């Protein structure tokens, strides 16, 4: 190694590592574009035509979609609530500061990782096969999906609490459950509620497409209008969903700011 040089080694001077990595990523990207056939099947004509039809929404269709949109929201609400409630005990078991036994904690985390690895649409497909077509399948899918996501957010919240109050409770002769009730839970109630609302936001969005797989909600109507080329009706659906998502998002943002 020739040390005295102010510019460092040759490879450092010319950022050899960075250049090579950039080149590699570029290569992968180019190969992927070519293999998928991007550009070959995209038609601007069709795109403009679709947009033009959508620009004249068929408002008479609106009364039909009110109920499925409400059902979508209800599915998201029930699924998120059930998943969140299930996540609470598991998040305590997975938190490093509460469960000192690495094996138990590892087992719980492994289980949670597996649950989280399953995408929501796959869950919906599975539950349609298990409980049949309808909103119940959607609720089940959203429950499991929320459970996986929320439990991770929750145990991370538990791990960031101030340990001082727990120490004080232990010093006062409290047992583990009493320490959790008096020192941990008061510190995590607000982050838990905040994560619940955040998950609800995500689930309202996710539940709009679950209907494609027969899991209830507004997705079924999206599927129908698109396959009948009634883009004027699809436009009404999209606008309706957009309105709901905007309202839920701003409501949840507002509440979460109040909780912080």
């Amino acid at each position, binding site marked *: 190694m020739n040390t005295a040089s102010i510019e460092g080694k040759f490879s450092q001077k010319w950022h050899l590592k960075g250049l090579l990595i950039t080149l590699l990523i570029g290569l992968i990207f180019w190969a992927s574009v070519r293999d998928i056939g991007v550009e070959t099947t995209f038609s601007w004509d069709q795109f403009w035509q679709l947009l033009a039809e959508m620009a004249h929404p068929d408002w008479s269709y609106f009364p039909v979609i009110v109920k499925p949109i409400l059902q979508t929201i209800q599915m998201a609400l029930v699924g998120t609530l059930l998943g969140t409630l299930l996540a609470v005990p598991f998040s305590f078991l997975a938190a490093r500061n509460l469960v000192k036994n690495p094996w138990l904690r590892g087992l719980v985390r492994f289980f949670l990782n597996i649950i989280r690895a399953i995408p929501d649409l796959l869950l919906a497909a599975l539950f349609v096969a298990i409980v049949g077509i309808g909103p119940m399948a959607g609720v089940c899918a959203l429950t499991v999906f929320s459970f996986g996501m929320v439990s991770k957010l929750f145990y991370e919240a538990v791990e960031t609490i101030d340990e001082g109050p727990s120490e*004080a409770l232990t010093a*006062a*002769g*409290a*047992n583990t459950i009493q320490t959790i009730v008096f020192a941990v839970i008061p510190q995590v109630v*607000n982050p838990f509620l905040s994560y619940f609302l955040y998950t609800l936001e995500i689930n309202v969005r996710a539940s709009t497409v679950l209907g494609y797989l027969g899991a209830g909600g507004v997705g079924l109507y999206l599927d129908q209008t698109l396959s009948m080329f009634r883009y004027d009706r699809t436009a009404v659906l999209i606008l309706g969903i957009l309105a709901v998502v905007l309202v839920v998002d701003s409501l949840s943002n507002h509440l979460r700011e109040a909780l912080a």
Partner: protein
Amino acid sequence: MVDQKGTVQIQHISKVYPNGTVGLDDIDLTINAGEFVVVVGLSGAGKSTLMRAINRLHDISDGAILIDGEDITQAKGKALRRLRRNLAMIFQNFNLVKRTTVMRNVLSGRVGYYSTFKSTLGLFSKADRQQALANLERVNMADKAYIRADELSGGQQQRVAIARAMMQSPTVFLADEPIASLDPKTTKMVMDDLKRLNEELGMTVIVNLHSVPLALEYASRVIGLQAGKLVYDKQIADVNQTDFAAIYAEAGDKE
């Protein structure tokens, strides 16, 4: 003096951390019931470790600690929690639950006397609620009982922490640098609170302090630690101002 509760016998205890650092090195000392002991020493001398060994927030590697004759270092489960009830503790950072009310914080000091079920549902007896108010009264915080702890100043939080610790009906009161983050005025209030617990209720008080003047003002006995070793132990009547130079000197005269 003999049947008064609150004796802490520390018998040749040592603490070696897993990484080999020696926290406490063969400390042997008996703190008698009703004493007001101030432990002085540089940061890292082992003051906090010693205190946390007494109520077993930390385990020690060797030796025994007897609380009124019962060995806390061997106690398990219920027996350990019952012993801890007698050892109240306050902290440098107060360690209140900031998002709950002062009252609930104070009541939480009593949970060692309740079953899991009852305490979880918050079913505290009327007598204990009255005791909580009385303890807040004692530290002049009764008017703040139903506001959230994070609305209080540091000094007020420490006084609430004292009220909480008193809910344990302790015989020994441990204070780990209770005034390190307080201003001089509230420092005096908190130290006076501790003095009253000692004089009026006869509790044994053990305080970790940095300040030698405060030690001289409040202590009935001064103990000095240096690098985990007991290097000083005198009744207040025998203490010389110049003694402390030795405890604080060796690590360099920066302070």
